[in-house]
């Protein structure tokens, strides 16, 4: 390593320059961008499926619950929006790690001067941005379909929803780590995303301790922001602080689980052994 912490190649044919974290970020985000625009079928498929389930929920619910559903439609749309965000971020991270293991590229990332940690975090950021784009389309269609109006202050929605699903990224890393160790369990862990429905609709006012669970506190804040029109700076410091702590905490715990799982996989000799 050079003094500034960047990697320096051992041999150089014609003065290669060392890459910095800026170059790394650019490379990882550009790769995600290329795959997103070059292979849009996955994103489009996700949008169609999300809207299909919402249609079933909305029209089926109207048949069963009638006016009761219409009265709570705003909350349902916000909850569904957050759920699609969560599912997108979780499955993107956990499935991505599984794919990297199968392709042998996880091993290559681990054996680089940067390691896999910054790459994983940057990929997480890319997945969140991508999920925001697709979920925004789902949200727009839901609003048009139901004739509903919500408060969509971009800064508030992006910050609150972004921090809410950061905790889910942590769960995605943990699931990815477990998959590295126990390959067959990966598909079962995908079922966890249905548990996000419970977290999104957790009764945090009746049971305040549930706020420390992933998504729960963020979901409540997002409801207040999008339904009641509360702006980001109008939330209490306590609410914002808890939102950040939960997000960072689960991300840290999730990444630690991933790190420990890959270390154990290296000890057992099963890393990349798909």
């Amino acid at each position: 390593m050079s003094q500034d912490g960047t990697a320096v190649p051992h041999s150089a044919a014609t003065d290669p320059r060392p890459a910095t974290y800026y170059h790394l970020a650019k490379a990882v985000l550009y790769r995600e961008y290329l795959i997103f625009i070059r292979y849009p079928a996955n994103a489009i498929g996700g949008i169609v499926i999300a809207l299909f389930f919402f249609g079933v929920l909305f029209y089926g619910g109207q048949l069963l619950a009638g006016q009761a559903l219409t009265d709570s439609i705003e909350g349902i749309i916000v909850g569904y929006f957050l759920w699609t965000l969560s599912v997108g971020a979780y499955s993107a991270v956990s499935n991505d790690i599984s794919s990297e293991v199968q392709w042998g590229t996880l091993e290559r990332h681990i054996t680089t001067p940067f390691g896999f940690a910054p790459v994983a975090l940057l990929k997480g950021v890319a997945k969140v941005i991508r999920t925001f784009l697709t979920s925004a389309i789902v949200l727009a269609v839901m609003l048009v379909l139901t004739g509903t109006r919500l408060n969509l202050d971009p800064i508030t929605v992006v910050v609150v929803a972004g921090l809410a699903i950061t905790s889910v990224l942590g769960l995605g890393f943990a699931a990815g780590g477990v998959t590295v160790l126990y390959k067959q369990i990966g598909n079962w862990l995908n079922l966890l995303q249905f548990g996000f429905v419970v977290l999104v609709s957790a009764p945090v006012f009746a049971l305040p301790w549930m706020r420390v669970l992933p998504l729960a506190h963020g979901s409540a804040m997002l409801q207040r922001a999008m339904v009641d029109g509360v702006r980001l700076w109008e939330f209490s410091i306590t609410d914002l602080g808890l939102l950040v702590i939960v997000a960072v905490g689960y991300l840290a715990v999730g990444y630690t689980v991933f790190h420990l799982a890959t270390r154990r996989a290296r000890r057992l000799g099963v890393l990349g052994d798909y």
Partner: protein
Amino acid sequence: MQQDTAIAQHGSVATDSNHNEAIETAVPALKLTNLSKRFGTGDDAIVAVDDVNLTIEPGSIVGLLGPNGAGKTTLIKCALGIIIPDSGSVSVFGNRVDGTRRSAYRDVDAMLEGARNDYWRLTVRENLRYFATIHGIDPNSVTQQHDRLLDRLELTDKADTPVRDLSRGMKQKVSLASVLAGGASLVFLDEPTLGLDVESSRTLQQELRRLAHEDGRTIVLSSHNMDVIERVCDRVVMMANGRIVADDSVNELLSDATRDTVQITSADIDERLVETLIDRFSVTVVGETAAGRTTIEITHAGERLYDVLDVLRNEAVTIDDIRTVQPQLEEVFVNLTGMGSEQTATSGRAE
């Protein structure tokens, strides 16, 4: 700090090429010390790598040979830190892999068998740029090197094609190119010619020699294809049961075996004489022609050769031809590892 003095020197002179060359001669590209790895516990435990010591000098091409289960892949993965060894240490250009891991990885990369090693949804050039970056190189500063690499591996025409649209052989070459794109000085290649046609395999072998002898890269080549190892490598390390059973230059390994096997051809060797020679000297008949010429082979000849010649002289046999056998590496391998030829695997014989 798990670095020795040479390591510090190595790191500090990266921009001084003359000094660097001097340091490189002193610091091994790879040094494995008492490396051991066992999988499982109790009676079911398998010793994959058993107290291996190995030093590889910079700029050499070393072939790693062994039957399936000999411990080659585990050894490579331990060297890379992908598998954590139970004991022993690994140093890459003096940097301990388990200690100053990030420093060690600036100098090493690998192409592992059975893995894609790259992203099939990206183009060939995008892969090169991506893997150069994660290997610590600004891709814009090595564009010319990448062009040259693509040219040498005959991938220029496919540079902007997504890897998924390429043939298996092409994908193999892209995998290799992406490993070389980051400029690592020590490269592990596991079955790099697998799936390549004859022409591509030869091109690749030439490129490997050039990379070592002109660019000064160190290459550790694991393959079941003895021909490739024999043609490309300066030195061969043979493994069996987790241990190194031979470690020498290709020429030395072959010459040792050459001195030991002799073939004699004569039209005067009849069935009775053959039986006598088999009984007394365990010779084998390796050829009989329509013209009645018989060829016998004496392995581990030594002094027995003179005894055989005495018998032939007493029987008034006129020797038409006598020669030492030019052995193939495969025979040396079979002798040293005790593995039958079917176990030396023919998977690398695609070419």
